[in-house]
């Protein structure tokens, strides 16, 4: 888009002053190049978000922002319930609490090299991926309720994981305030055989190698060293989250007039936080967060089982688990006053800085690990939260590279099998049930994750700690 539409506040901060029905400014974090490459739809969507009732400070777009649904993907917005603030199903997204979890393996790349094919096969066999895959766990009414209330904590109680996993998950693995009775029978039906499955699209499980360290001290606290091998899991709340999103989007669109909400775009459908529908959605959405946390916990368990068949006796501890599609109640300081705000992050990662009370002791000095997934065949990054991120965008950072090309274009341009061979020549093993799926996720169909992460770093949204490169990628 045209950078002349913005007032450039500093090197990485571009502002759109309120006009029309905008209640607050819209701010995009980018450099001139990233901003020029962004679709004009990001401008439309972020200014639309700025019109919503009860929005506080500004509507923000992260450096990886792209055209989404109502909200841009990479959108952040906080709402004050006392000022008529709203919650938006589109502002959370269909894949509630989609996120990334990274595990230490204790291995280095030399240990892995001779066994990487065996490990790829073991992971592909053990972790169900892609459409039509089913989990081995079948939930009944009672276990479904336990899962929706307890999240990763529930999974642990069922024998999936280790007690020390929980402190390294946002919300300590269990989202409070979940109200499973607001999760419809259909959402439950979609989930009952899907626990512990990766899904498809841009979801993956990757074995990665640490190739660069940017901050030695923080990397040490995070347990990352050059040539270490880690495993990252990117997935969300599966069918349950998708169904909750689908149902509430329709309900919110149909009831907007009743709440006197003028929607510039139907997809921005929302309801006042204090309304019965808003509360119902929050209860269901939080149950969806627990579903995602439980899902990543079970996949962690399966990963541990698979790795043990190739490397008996090694221990896989968590680095951290982040979610990038959420709406959460958080304390933020506005004009010197502490406020309880509902922060939507749609394709944006929470990035609490040093000293934040919600962080476990181990990360109190460094800020939270911010896990940024790249595309298949390129790099991923570990960052840490900063103090200034609070002022920049309610402690939020980017979530990934963001697509540069549509799926249709990508599948026309590349062939899955050729891509798999090319990546194999570079030492990257791909395992996927669908070659077309691989083509649609081609590395060059995504923006350069390094450029996105550099801007997040320069903007102070989060600080670079380490770069990871894939060795094995299991694609859904």
């Amino acid at each position: 888009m045209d950078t002349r539409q913005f007032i450039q506040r500093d090197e990485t901060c571009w502002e759109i002053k309120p006009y029309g029905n905008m209640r607050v400014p819209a701010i995009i974090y980018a450099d001139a190049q990233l901003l020029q490459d962004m679709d004009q739809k990001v401008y439309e969507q972020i200014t639309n978000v700025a019109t919503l009732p009860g929005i506080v400070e500004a509507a923000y777009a992260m450096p990886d922002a792209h055209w989404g649904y109502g909200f841009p993907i990479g959108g952040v917005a906080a709402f004050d319930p006392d000022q008529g603030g709203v919650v938006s199903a589109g502002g959370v997204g269909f894949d509630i609490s989609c996120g990334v979890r990274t595990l230490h393996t204790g291995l280095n790349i030399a240990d892995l090299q001779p066994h990487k094919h065996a490990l790829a096969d073991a992971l592909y066999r053990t972790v169900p991926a892609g459409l039509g895959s089913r989990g081995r766990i079948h939930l009944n009414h009672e276990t479904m309720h336990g899962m929706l209330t307890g999240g990763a904590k529930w999974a642990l109680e069922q024998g999936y994981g280790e007690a020390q996993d929980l402190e390294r998950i946002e919300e300590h693995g269990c989202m409070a305030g979940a109200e499973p009775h607001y999760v419809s029978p259909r959402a439950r039906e979609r989930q009952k055989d899907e626990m512990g499955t990766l899904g498809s699209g841009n979801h993956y499980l990757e074995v990665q190698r640490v190739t660069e360290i940017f901050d030695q001290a923080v990397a040490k606290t995070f347990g990352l060293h050059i040539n270490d091998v880690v495993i990252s899991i990117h997935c969300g709340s599966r069918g349950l989250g998708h169904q909750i999103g689908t149902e509430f989007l329709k309900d919110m669109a149909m009831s907007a007039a009743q709440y006197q909400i003028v929607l510039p775009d139907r997809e921005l459908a929302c309801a006042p936080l204090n309304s019965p529908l808003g509360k119902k959605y929050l209860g269901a959405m939080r149950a969806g967060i627990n579903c995602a946390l439980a899902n990543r916990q079970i996949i962690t368990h399966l990963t541990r089982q698979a790795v043990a068949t190739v490397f008996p006796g090694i221990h896989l501890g968590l680095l951290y688990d982040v979610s990038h599609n959420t709406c959460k109640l958080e304390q933020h300081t506005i004009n010197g006053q502490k406020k309880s705000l509902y922060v939507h992050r749609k394709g944006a990662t929470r990035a609490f800085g040093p000293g934040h009370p919600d962080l476990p002791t181990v990360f109190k000095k460094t800020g939270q690990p911010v896990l940024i997934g790249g595309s298949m065949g390129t790099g991923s990054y570990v960052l840490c939260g900063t103090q200034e991120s609070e002022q920049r965008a309610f402690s939020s950072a980017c979530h990934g590279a963001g697509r540069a090309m549509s799926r249709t274009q990508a599948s026309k341009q590349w062939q899955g099998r050729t891509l798999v061979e090319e990546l194999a020549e570079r030492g990257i093993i791909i395992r996927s049930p669908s070659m077309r799926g691989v083509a649609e996720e081609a590395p060059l169909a995504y923006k350069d994750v390094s450029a996105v992460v550099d801007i997040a770093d320069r903007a102070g949204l989060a600080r670079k700690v380490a770069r990871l490169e894939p060795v094995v990628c299991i694609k859904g």
Partner: protein
Amino acid sequence: MNSKTIIPHWEHFEHEADIGIRGIAPTLEQAFEQAAVAMTAVVTDLDLVSDSKVVSIHCEAPDTELLFVSWINELVYEMAVNGLLFNRYEVVITNGKLSATAFGEAVDRQKHQPAVEIKGATFTELRVYQQADNAWVAQCVVDV
């Protein structure tokens, strides 16, 4: 041009992160049918899907656009819960109520090589309208 001369067809359209489905046909019902075919084509090659299984679908909504989203979402639900793929449809719409029959088969991962799973129909680029040539168009972006 008379809309009767338009051959029912479907197409995909671009969305940065996901993909758009569009049905174009002489009647509203056929446009809904074609858009649903476009949805299956997001997942797999249509020629690979047989029509040995039959499923009945019913839904309603206060307006035609919401009815279209509901229709696609009913299919997404059937596909997800019963592990199905559909290759053709028969839709009847009366007074905002949709009744349909979807023909398809169970997903076979070897045979169909499904590229992606559809999470749901969105309101993005959601439009149901009649073109100047009287042909009906039904479209939206699906989240994958």
